[in-house]
């Protein structure tokens, strides 16, 4: 148990071991570790970014959907309004047409009736006169009976 040259040998080996570790071991392994750390950090950052991007996209989609819904509502509203307007217009036009045709028809009928009545009257009067002439061709006071006939015609 005495100090001897072993100490010097150990010291030399000590420096050699440190030198080899410093040169060939430590930087290599630590480099790999740091590189991996960097990679992982990058990966996580990319993940975060992607997540944020996704969130932004989702928000955008949401607003787009809401806008689209609004627009659709507006369009529907407008369409309804147009449809109602068209319907109303058509209805009123139809009513007016009906009115017009009905008055025209009525006028026609009136006309026809009047004409028929006129013809009938004339025919009846001639008929009556003819009949009367035949019935009472012998004794006829044309003047007396003319008055009677006129009354008759007026009655018809």
């Amino acid at each position, binding site marked *: *148990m*005495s*100090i*001897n*040259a*072993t*100490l*010097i*040998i*150990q*010291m030399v*080996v*000590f*420096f*050699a*071991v*440190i030198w*080899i*570790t*410093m040169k*060939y*071991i*430590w*930087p*290599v*392994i*630590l*480099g*790999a*570790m740091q*590189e*991996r750390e960097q*990679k992982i950090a990058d990966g996580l950052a990319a993940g975060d970014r992607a997540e944020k991007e996704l969130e932004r996209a989702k928000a955008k989609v949401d607003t787009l959907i809401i806008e689209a819904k609004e627009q659709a509502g507006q369009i529907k509203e407008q369409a309804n309004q147009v449809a109602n307007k068209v319907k109303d217009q058509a209805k009123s036009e139809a009513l007016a047409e009906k009115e017009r045709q009905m008055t025209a028809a009525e006028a026609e009928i009136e006309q026809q009736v009047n004409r028929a009545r006129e013809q009938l009257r004339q025919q009846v009067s001639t008929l009556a006169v003819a009949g009367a002439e035949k019935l009472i061709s012998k004794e006829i006071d044309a003047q007396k009976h003319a008055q009677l006939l006129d009354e008759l015609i007026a009655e018809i």
Partner: protein
Amino acid sequence: MASGESSGSAGDYISHHLVNNTQELVEGSSFWTINADSVFYTILLAVIYLLFFRSVAKKATAGVPSKTQNFVEMILGFVDKQVTDVFTGSSKLVAPMALSIFIWVWLMNFMDLLPIDLLPWLGTLIGIEYMKIVPSTDLNIVFGMSFGVMLLVFYYSFTVKKPVVLGYLKEFLTHPFAAEGWLGKILLAGPNLFLNLVETLAKPVSLSLRLFGNMYAGELIFILIAVLTVNYTFADFFSPGGIMVSVMQFILAFVWAVFHILIITLQAYIFMMLSVVYMNMAHETHEDH
């Protein structure tokens, strides 16, 4: 355990295990002698450490690491964290130094956990009469390392502290007691010098003797446990008393070995941390005082 050495007393057995196998380099010189066993094992362990870590370094990838790489990275990460926590300067040397010390000292200490007579017995088969297999129970080894650390400390103390060389010498005279004015400075120079000398001398001694003491004591306890059955013949192990002693010996050795796993790791860690602390002191500049 020591059934092969049925001749010889317990005292012989103990002293036998505490003596290094020495080889004289220069005839009759006690200094130019080497402890062949310590040198052999310390270099063997250094080579094992370097080869293992180098093989991992060669295959190191930044992708998915293998289990071995993972294991090595765990150790590296641990050491790196300890060093960055303690060491405030910037140096390419300190962290590799810490790693080397941690692993190498741990491996030296680990030799303590091998069955105490296994390697010496294998040695006798190839004609080596006796050897000590735990390098860290050899004062030369622990002092060799602590002097190595101190040389680095001196080197950086002289080169880092400004002005070069003089900065460190000035620190010797003006710290820890600082004074304003030239009279106070002169008066305090003596005590400062004294304290700094003591501190500087204490560093390598406490660094190495702490490790040496722990490992030496630990090994001594293993030896004492082994001594329980030192003179047993084969038949003795199977006598009623012999069985009891053998079982007790096994339990004691087992418990102490488990406990010793903690100690060897702790001592390797302490040696590493103290070295880093000393290196940090060497890199500190006291300009803020």
